């Protein structure tokens, strides 16, 4: 092939002329694509707590410690399990230093799969023993409670079930919603029911509860626990199984909903109230910034953070009794006592059973 019009005569096509802006652009692009590095101390945090709740706490940490936090959040749709799956996928190539989860059961599962490393935190010594891993791989703080959300316009206060089993009453047929248990805290709650009732009454009781819900045509929703509250607030359902923080958020947004703390056991049996699910924090084994990770974990376990979370829109329940006393409006009466590790182990089976009995995707 012969030569065409020489390059020398070509008017500024891409690289031919005016090189400076092109070179500058390529440099900028390269900087963006490879990330801007600096000597500033940093820590990588994977966080499944709600974005608007976590950000002020992270900012406070950055201001106090001088350590920059590079955060990866989770969407409400994938709540927690998205990051859990990611941590597991990155086990041989860890990117995160710290995992702040909004629940405990998947944290325990990850710990059992070797994703976390031990951390001896002096600051965590004053929390209840159930909120500490015996092997010191994770710590719990600032809990949420499982509750029933209901529409006060459509459910009279006397009709609201006082126990979880009360949801199987036929008067609620076609009026109940719950989140897909494969995401969020719903699966852990089902695991807790299975473990607690098996010990208290018998293994059959959990399945009886699910059969009762199925008879009541409970509807699974894809929008997480926030979606459950939205469905009740929008009038799609009258009652739903959800978490306190989602109800507080709806009330804060002016929605007409109420909540109740149903018991797992009948009155008179202590430690049989509703389930408290703490936030958890753990250090990722082999993470790139272990020293900064320890500083961040201790900060998240501090009284300051518990107060910030209790005062936030999600109104988490402090696990330190002294702090909890200052937020009595959000105290949970007689919370359920259950072995969290056993719940985590029972969770997959509990979810399988729930999907088998409650999934109505085959229904016409």
């Amino acid at each position: 092939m012969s030569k065409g019009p020489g390059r020398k005569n070509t008017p500024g096509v891409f690289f031919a002329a005016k090189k400076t802006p092109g070179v500058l652009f390529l440099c900028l692009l390269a900087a963006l694509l490879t990330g801007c590095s600096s000597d500033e101390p940093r820590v990588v945090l994977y966080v499944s707590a709600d974005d608007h709740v976590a950000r002020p706490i992270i900012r406070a940490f950055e201001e106090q410690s001088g350590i920059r936090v590079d955060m990866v959040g989770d969407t409400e749709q994938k709540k927690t399990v998205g990051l859990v799956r990611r941590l597991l996928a990155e086990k041989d190539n860890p990117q995160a230093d710290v995992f702040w989860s909004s629940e405990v059961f998947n944290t325990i599962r990850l710990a059992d799969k070797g994703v976390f490393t031990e951390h001896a935190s002096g600051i965590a010594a004053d929390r209840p023993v159930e909120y500490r891993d015996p092997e010191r791989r994770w710590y719990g703080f600032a809990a949420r409670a499982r509750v029933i959300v209901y529409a006060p316009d459509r459910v009279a206060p006397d009709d609201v079930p006082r126990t979880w089993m009360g949801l199987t009453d036929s008067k609620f047929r076609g009026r109940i919603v719950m989140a897909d248990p494969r995401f969020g805290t719903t699966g852990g709650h089902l695991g807790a029911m299975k473990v607690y009732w098996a010990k208290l009454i018998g293994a059959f009781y959990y399945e009886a509860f699910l059969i009762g819900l199925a008879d009541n045509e409970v509807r699974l929703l894809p929008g997480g626990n926030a979606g459950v509250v939205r469905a009740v607030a929008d009038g799609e359902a009258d009652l739903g199984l959800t978490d306190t923080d989602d109800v507080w958020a709806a009330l804060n947004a002016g929605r007409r909903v109420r909540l109740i703390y149903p018991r797992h056991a009948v009155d008179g049996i202590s430690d049989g109230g509703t389930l408290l699910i703490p936030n958890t924090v753990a250090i990722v084994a082999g993470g790139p910034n272990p020293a900064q990770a320890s500083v961040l974990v201790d900060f998240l376990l501090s009284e300051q953070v518990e107060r910030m979370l209790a005062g936030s829109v999600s109104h988490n329940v402090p696990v330190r009794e002294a702090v909890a006393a200052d937020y009595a409006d959000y105290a949970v009466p007689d919370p359920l006592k259950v072995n969290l590790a056993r719940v985590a182990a029972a969770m997959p089976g509990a979810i399988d059973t729930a999907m088998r009995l409650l999934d109505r995707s085959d229904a016409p």
Partner: protein
Amino acid sequence: MRRSGWILPAAALAAWIAAVGYPALALVPAFVAAEPAKVAARNAASLFTTSFAWALAVAIAAVAVAWVPGRLLGRSISRRWYLPLSALLLAPICVPAYVVFYAWWQAWPAESTVYRWAVEHDAISMVKAATLFLGLVCWSWPVAAWCVAGFAAAVPAHRDELLRLDGAGPVRRLIETARNDWRGLALGGLIVFLFVFNNTTSFDIAQIFTFGYELRALENELDAGVRAIMMAAAPAIAMAVVGVAAIWWLLGRGHTELATRPAAPTRAALIVTAAIWLVSVALPVVLFIVNLTAQVNVMTFTRLYGRDLANTLAIAVASGAVTAFVAVGLAAAWQDRRRWVRTLADVQAIGWLVVAVVPATTVGVALEAAYNRPGLDAALYTTPAILVIGALARYGFIAALLARWVSMREPQELRDMRRLDGADTFVAYVVATWPRLVAAAGASAALVAVLSMSELVVAARVAPPGVPLIAGAILNAVHYQRPDTVLLAVLFLVGFGLAGGIAAVTVFAPLRRR
């Protein structure tokens, strides 16, 4: 094309390998290595049928709504109002579909007549489904309109005049119009169908289980490996491949050279288009703002989400810039005299299209399989580069389509003359096709930049630390019922989108026949 001609085709090929070829290849060992998993799954056939029915219904409605505006857009190519009209028809696409639904859903708040009626008649779920349908049609009809416009612009004015001279009645004129536009309508319908089928987020918010949702649930099962996810996604992947084959076939058919004197737009078409735009785009925005009860605080918003916006914009610009090179490289490759180079460009284009219309979950899985490994991670997986690769994977098809459009429109005479003159170098090609090449590159860059700002599924899976994006913040704000955050974020997106739309249309301006 010889000498320096290999540079940009090679750059396009490199981008394709990074975003499509290598991730697809990386799935193979991950698929083989994964153990078959036992996971709790819902009825896949039933969910597939649900998603299929929704996608089909929305596609039909979107095409019906888009026909008149698309014809108007195509026939306006030489008119003064072409630029604002194009920008107005691009703006809705830059907002995520779920936000359009959300805006409509906010249109009937708790105290409204519609809401009260729905509660009294136990019809909230039905109203929500109808609102979702409305929102998806409002979001998708401009996509179909752009497809129709491409074919409508090829209709010369004398076709209308001949029909008038023949005394053709309205029915015959409609038939003639349909005969001309059917490829554009079919193309638009197919693209909308595939996009809606793979849309998960809108359906989640509307509390409707879909095939895409089930894939995501499976993706997040700790015991489900790549094999389980890809096996579950197989029906959607097969459908995407068939859809892309149909799109490719449609693109290669018919007369598509722009008419020297396109048929004139009618006043009726202008009125109908204005009405459709006002009802489907302006009205939900106005209703959303009117019904907003929360206090909007721009300072608080920018303090909380300024970094997200800056990251989103930077990723968009980088994705757009890389896409421009892809468009130019592919256009150059299709002009090459060597058949294997052109065939390679065909393979790339088909690859870009397939990746765009398979479930986004599978794209995220493939990118993770490819880049989440020691050695590669420092360069790509832990930096924003992975987000650019993700955006390319989802929207690189735009560069392929526009490059195809450019390469098909160089008149054969000009191509022959270049060869006869021996001006077959890359530089000569660039000079000869300069306006079209710039148009394809610029429009690809602008469109991909705009679309990448609302990409969520892939970004949520592979986002590197410290790079929060605004799309995730919007979705969380929707879930947590914070309409003030949604509104401000969307206004920023629309602002960026309009700027991108205007940029895209401006670079196309030299192509308009006057």
